[in-house]
């Protein structure tokens, strides 16, 4: 077990190096203009471009530029840790810009995850147990509908229907609970949570169904039934426990996908989280901010995957990593 954890940590270092290198190439090697011009924003003076060139060490060879890039990230820069640079468009350090928004993004993601697990898994289980029934077909059809629907469009349709036409949901925007009270906050978060969750709920329903169907055919389930256990007990204690483990690994993989969904939902519902800000930064040519969000999101996903992988060993004793 410990050997696995150590090996996994070493692998994490390699992963982080690859991810940072990839990001570096996109921002420092790909662009047709000097990164300094890119980073300094639209109305940069030659003096500012010279400063940026010096700050980023752009007069050094590329590989030293990469090491400097890593060094700023790992050891921090003059704006704090981790070193994410300065947004010349916003005249503010990128770190402070992210820090002010990350909570909204996390609230959105965590809330949505709870909703999709609460919807997806039960539907998948019912679908599997009632395999081939009309409910199974309907559930699968609806699940595929949400997997196929563009998230941003679904958000707009929900807004049009529940807010504009029916008037039963709150409109767009983020209302901090401290300022507006928990109820107003909840009211405005409900629809973003549900919209973001529906896509993944569709997947999880499909995955859980497949996984439960596989487990139902296993010998130990037949044994449990043979012992005369009640069907509900067989289902909960034996089938569910075995078939939900694969869902956990999926959870790790989905975090990367969740980032995309969060960006889109933040834009549609006008939640001023990190995702919406990243999109605004692109449109404002605020490249240091886009770089920072991409990097932070990628690193966060890699770290989360590490946690999921290690948890997986704990919950699934059949797997031995050595």
């Amino acid at each position, binding site marked *: 077990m410990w050997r696995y954890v150590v090996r996994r940590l070493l*692998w994490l270092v*390699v*992963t982080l190096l*690859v*991810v940072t290198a*990839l*990001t570096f190439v*996109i*921002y420092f090697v*790909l*662009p*047709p*203009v000097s990164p300094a011009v*890119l980073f300094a924003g639209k109305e940069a003076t030659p003096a500012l471009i010279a400063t940026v060139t010096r700050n980023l060490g752009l007069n050094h060879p590329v590989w030293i530029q990469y090491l400097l890039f890593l060094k700023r990230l790992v050891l921090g820069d003059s704006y704090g840790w981790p070193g994410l640079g300065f947004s010349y468009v916003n005249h503010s350090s990128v770190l402070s810009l992210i820090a002010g928004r990350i909570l909204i993004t996390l609230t959105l993601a965590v809330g949505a995850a709870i909703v999709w697990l609460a919807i997806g898994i039960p539907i998948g289980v019912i679908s599997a147990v009632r395999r081939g029934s009309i409910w199974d077909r309907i559930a699968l059809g609806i699940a*595929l*509908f949400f*997997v*196929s*629907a*563009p*998230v*941003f*469009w679904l958000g*707009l*349709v929900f807004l*049009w229907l529940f807010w*504009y036409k029916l008037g039963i949901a709150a409109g767009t925007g983020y209302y901090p609970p401290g300022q507006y009270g928990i109820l107003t906050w909840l009211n405005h978060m409900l629809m973003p949570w549900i919209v973001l969750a529906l*896509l993944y709920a569709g*997947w999880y329903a*499909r*995955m859980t169904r*497949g996984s439960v169907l596989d487990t139902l055919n296993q010998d130990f389930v037949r044994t449990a039934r043979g012992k005369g256990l009640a069907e509900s007990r067989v289902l909960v204690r034996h089938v569910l426990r075995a078939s939900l483990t*694969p869902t956990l690994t*999926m959870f*790790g*993989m*989905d975090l*990367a*996908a969740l*980032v*995309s*969904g969060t*960006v*889109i939902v933040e*834009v549609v519902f006008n939640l001023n989280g990190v995702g919406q800000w*990243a*999109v605004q930064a*692109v*449109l404002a*040519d605020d*490249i240091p901010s*886009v*770089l920072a*969000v*991409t990097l932070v*999101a*990628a690193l966060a*996903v*890699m770290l989360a*995957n590490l946690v999921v992988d290690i948890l997986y060993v704990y919950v699934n004793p059949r797997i031995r990593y050595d």
Partner: protein
Amino acid sequence: MTAPVGLAASAPAPVAEPIGSRTQWQQMVRRFRADRFAMAGLVMVIFLAAVAVCAPLIAKLAGHGPNELFPGQLSAGLGLPTGPSGRFYFGVDSDGRDLFVRCLYGLRTSLIISLLAAAIATAIGVTVGMAAGYFGGWIDTLISRFADIFLALPVLLFAISISSVCSISARGCLAGTIQPGIGLVVLILALFTWPYIARIVRGQTLVVREQEFVNAARGFGASHLATMFIEILPNLTAQVIVYMTLIIPNNILFEAALSFLGVGVPQTTPSLGRMIADATNGSLFTYAWWMMLFPGVLLLLITYSFNIVGDGLRDAIGG
């Protein structure tokens, strides 16, 4: 980007006994044709593809070009667009352009981008995945690990990044080899979807590699390349086609999302995602519901149909 439907469950499907790939094909076709749901999806895909191909023709029949302005269709005072009518089936957008014709052209854009990207991703994925499965050892480790990292990247942000740095000047990226526009979106999509195909192909190659006809081919002096592409590849086609089908709707949604966010195809190219973004301008969609409804329904129809077909194909090969 999210994983194409069902790719996580990549249990290697049973490979046909050494009879050859044709019987496997026939079996797949027979099972697929028995699946009414999947057949309905296929009919829908073919219909929508035909409509997209004929878009210029239909536009000519309707008498409206995709970028033609009809200021008479905007209300006199506020200049608000008007809804569906006998001459403008889907209404007009805020610039007074025919939404019906634009939707058809948008569908065309969606299909061109998603099919091209899927083809490129498949070509890369098959080559790389087959190499990993066939040679094994450090080549396999290197490729598989690299694919793993790619699968865990927050794709949308990387796509936004590439798109923003490469669109900053008309010169594009890498000394002009990567130009802003449709090509850039295709490249980004292909770059982030090949690992799905590579993974499936690798697993499948591991199974096929052990079969006697592969040994026989090697024994007759076939080179590694010949063995891979002549002996092994035909046994992978069914699987590859299934997962290629599942990547296409994913690509369509991703292009739409990029264009919705304003970092996808350029302004002049009609795109369903961008049309929906236009509808959000000043919350226009609360009034001009048609600007949001028709492009969205079209997107949903095409992705839903592709997903049904992909699911049906996967069931048909017993995956």
